Every structure is written in structure tokens, then in C-alpha cells.
């Protein structure tokens, strides 16, 4: 496929936003159960609004993917069958929750709604946090399933796609939360940086597994099945057009194998190896700058990773477009 930058930005930005929200609510839950000292609500407020801003930027980027953005509202109608439609519902719902979560912490309007069996109070932010966490995971699944459900693009059609979207979004979000905590809630920084390290490591395993899987894939569709002629030697002599078309533009990234290989190693370094080192250094030295650098490097790497994910997908329609004349 020819990766669209709108999709690259959409998926990486909302992934980071979701991960950041999950990281914030992890800290809030730990604090609620007394496992961590309570943190200032400014930390949650700013984190929640950064998460909302990332999601908004992602949504904004997604409009550039549409030919007719003014009709985008229609895309929420087919949630029964289309994962894209489900994402279109889950994203604004999650945005709303993350916005309210930030606002509740910002304004301090955080009434106790009830009590748990143990007598622990349940605040409105706890309810919003649980709802937001459910929506964050739902959104990860929707985003990933858009790709994973296309069954003949075999590089995408795998549970690893869903796992990696969750892990990579989580890794970037937790790295951001760690950087934020270094400035606003130093007590929880080690926990967040530790989790960011763990999720980044899991992400490396998951993404590595999908790279290995993709390298071994053999296409199911061949020129023989594409035109239904059973002969070992079939060569296209003409695709029926000379000036290019949607079919020649949309489905191939146009880069050589060497460029692709260097991009692959580039993102493996900048999404996983370098941030893992920086997170480790930041964890030990409690340096906010190093953690900010870690999350910036990781996000830039994720842009490459997402480009590569979209590019490294062989669409069977390319079988019909191999030779101009």
C-alpha cells in the first residue's frame, strides 16, 4: 500500500493519547487503593488535556484522508459491520471522556458518587477513568481491526496487528506520562518509566514477531489465480493503461527494498532500543529532559513504524498492474 500521512498521524497520535490516559488512570487507581501517595490533581488535569489534545490532533489529521470530509458524519452509521465506523464512534466518545476527566481534575469538581463494599469512596474521576480505560481499549481494537480484518492483505490479517497497536500506543503514552510525571509528580515517575520500559519491551517482542511473520509470508493469490490460467509462466504485457491510475498510485509505496530495510532498522532503533536506553537513564537519574527526549524519539520512530506498517502490505490487486506495455 501507499501509506497516507493522514493515517500515519491519526493512528500514532490517538495511540499516544490512549496510552497517556491509561497511564494516568493507572496512577490514580494505585493512589486510590493507597499503593501510591496521592498526586496533585494538576498532574491528572494536564495529562488528561494533553491526551485530549493528541486525540483531537489525530481526528483532525484523519479528515485529510477523506475525499469528502464534509460528509464525515455519515461514517458513524455502519457500526454493525464496519470497524472504521466503530472507530468513528469510539474516538469521539473517548475524547469526550478524556476531556471531562481533565476538566474534573482541573476544576476540582469531583464529587463522591458512591462507596465500594470496603467503604472506599468512588469519585466521578474514577467512573470517568474506568469508562475511559474501556473506551481506550475499544478504540485500540477498532483501529487495529480496520487493518486486521482485511483478510487478503496477509501482513495485516493477524492478531499481532491488534496486540501491536495496543502495545505501541501504550508504550508511547506511558513514556509521555513518565516525562510529564518527572516535572509534575516525581514520586510516581519511577513507576511510569518502569511500565514504559516494560511495555516498550513487550512492543519490541510483538513488533518483532510480526516482522518475522511478514518476512515468511507467501502470497496466496498469484497471477495464476488472478486471471485463472494454470501455467507456470505468465507475464503481463500490458495493464491496459499508460498514464497511471488510482490502481497504480494507491497500492504501492514506490520505495526500493534498500530504503525499506533501512526504515525498518531505523524504527526498530528509534521506537524500541533508543527509548529503552533513555528511559533507563531517566529512571536512574530522574532527569525530566532525558524522559522528554525518550518520548520524542519514540514518537518520531512510531511515525516511521506506522508508515512501514502500511507500506509493508502486499495488495493482491498489484498482480494486475505489473507492466505498462
Amino acid at each position, binding site marked *: 500500500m501507499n501509506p497516507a500521512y493522514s493515517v500515519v498521524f491519526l493512528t500514532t497520535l490517538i495511540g499516544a493519547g490512549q496510552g497517556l490516559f491509561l497511564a494516568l488512570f493507572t496512577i490514580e487507581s494505585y493512589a486510590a487503593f493507597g499503593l501510591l501517595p496521592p498526586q496533585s490533581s494538576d498532574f491528572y488535569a494536564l495529562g488528561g488535556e494533553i491526551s485530549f489534545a493528541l486525540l483531537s490532533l489525530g481526528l483532525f489529521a484523519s479528515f485529510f484522508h477523506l475525499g*469528502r470530509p464534509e460528509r464525515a458524519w455519515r461514517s458513524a*452509521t455502519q457500526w454493525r459491520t464496519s470497524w472504521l465506523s466503530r472507530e468513528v464512534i469510539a474516538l469521539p466518545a473517548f475524547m469526550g471522556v478524556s476531556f471531562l476527566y481533565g476538566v474534573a481534575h482541573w476544576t476540582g469538581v469531583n464529587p463522591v458518587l458512591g462507596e465500594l463494599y470496603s467503604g472506599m469512596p468512588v469519585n466521578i474521576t474514577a467512573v470517568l477513568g474506568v469508562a475511559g480505560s474501556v473506551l481506550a481499549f475499544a478504540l485500540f481494537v477498532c483501529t487495529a481491526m480496520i487493518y486486521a480484518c*482485511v483478510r*487478503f492483505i496477509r501482513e495485516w490479517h493477524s492478531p499481532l496487528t491488534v496486540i501491536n497497536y495496543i502495545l505501541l500506543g501504550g508504550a508511547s503514552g506511558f513514556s509521555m506520562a513518565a516525562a510529564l510525571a518527572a516535572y509534575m509528580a516525581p514520586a510516581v515517575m519511577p513507576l511510569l518509566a518502569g511500565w514504559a520500559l516494560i511495555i516498550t519491551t513487550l512492543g519490541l517482542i510483538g513488533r518483532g514477531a510480526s516482522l518475522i511473520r511478514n518476512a515468511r509470508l507467501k502470497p496466496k493469490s498469484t497471477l495464476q489465480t488472478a486471471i485463472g490460467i494454470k501455467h507456470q509462466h505468465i507475464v*503481463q504485457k500490458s495493464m491496459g493503461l*499508460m498514464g497511471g491510475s*488510482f490502481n497504480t498510485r494507491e497500492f504501492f509505496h514506490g520505495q526500493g527494498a534498500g530504503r525499506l530495510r533501512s526504515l525498518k532498522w531505523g524504527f526498530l532503533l528509534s521506537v524500541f532500543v533508543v527509548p529503552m536506553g533513555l528511559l533507563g537513564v531517566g529512571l536512574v537519574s530522574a532527569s525530566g529532559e532525558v524522559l522528554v527526549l525518550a518520548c520524542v524519539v519514540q514518537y518520531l520512530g512510531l511515525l516511521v513504524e506506522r508508515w512501514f506498517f502500511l507500506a509493508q502490505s502486499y495488495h493482491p490487486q498489484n498482480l494486475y498492474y505489473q507492466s505498462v506495455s
Partner: protein
Amino acid sequence: MTQLALVIDLNVCVGCHACVTNCKEWNTSGEAGPMVDRNPYGKDPNGTFFNRVQTFEVGEFPQTETVHFPKSCLHCEEPPCVPVCPTGASYKRKEDGIVLVDYDKCIGCKYCSWACPYGARELDADQRVMKKCTLCVDRIYDTTMTAEERRPACVRACPTSARLFGDIHDPDSEVSHAIREAGGYQLMPECGTYPANHYLPRRKVKLRIREDEIERADNPLKIDGQLPKPGKAEPTLDDVSSW
């Protein structure tokens, strides 16, 4: 249930592209608005087409065969492009099985083109919506036309009658006969899309002629001309045979 479809005979197609031009002509002049045509006579002609004729060479020289392969939307019975559409613009008609795009609902997200393994869908660069073969739905039900004219433009244009049009669910239709009797097949069966359009394979037409068919058995002199006239005294066939 009806499932209208094209059946394309690869044994007959000569690759003249008449179906391509007539398809473009009919559909660019229709109610749905023109199909993009940029630089039609310039260096990089570019535009939206519903139908293309491609050419493949099968085999190795000198034993090769040229196969012309017309390709348009196959109107799958399990169309993968329909469930992925987030707006419901892409749909399959219940009454005749034609897969269509509602140009007023399409948001141009291109997801359906990712989901189609055949590359049958194109984004129109001007209208910015997805377009594809409609099986000339604006033509085949137009009662102001004669019955002969109420067929897709590509079928009407084909000079060698390589394109048949009809209901593949009706076992007695011309297309069903062709599929059954000439070994009609579907493209990329491994994708599980069950395309309605079928292709008829290349067939070797061999005339088997036995020796005795070129040489008359009762021609002992090996002269295929007038037999020597027997003399008056010679015994006739009736005299020597036993019946």
C-alpha cells in the same frame, strides 16, 4: 434470486478495447456526472475507468499464447467492499445483485478499495468519491430503449461477442449455459468473494480427421476422382455381394 453478471470468453476476446471506450463513453455521459479524464490526448493520460483490457503472455517462446483479459468490477456474491464501508454508500442490491456506490453518501475514505482484492474501485479525482462498474444499471432498466439495447455498454460494443450478460442464478440463462458448458471460472477463488462475473477459459479447437475421411475407402487407386467405369460384362456389386 437474481444475480446479474458478465461472462467473458477469453477464447474470443481479441483485445480491441472497444468495451473500454464504450464503457467510458456511456458512463461519462450519464446522470452520475463525468468520469475524470486528465490529459486525454497529452503525455500522461489519466482518468477514471470502470473497465480495462489487459494483456498477458502465457508460456515461453516459442510456445506462447497472448491472452487479452478484460477486467471490471466482478459484482461478488460476498463483496468484501460492502461491509467495510463506514457510511453504507457501498451496497449490494438485493433485487439483482449489482454492487453499487451511492455517490451522495461516499466520503472518499478509500477503505473499500483496500478491501477489494481485484482493484475494481477507483477514486474519482474530481468528485472525490469511489467509482466502479455499475453493470450499466442506468441502461439495463431503461424501458425507453429496445430490449436489444438494454444491455451493458461493454456488451453492446464487443465486436466478437466475447461478453455475455445475464442472470447467473437462472439455470436456463445464456450465461449459466456458458458457465456450465464451457467451464466458466471465477477470479481469485481463494479470497472467498464468490465473484458473479465469470470467465470462460481458452479452448484448443482441434479437428480430428481420420485417414479414411480424407481418402475414400472404396478408392483403391488412391485417385480421388471419377472411378474407372466398369465394363458392361463385369459383375456388378449386386452380383458379387451376398445380399
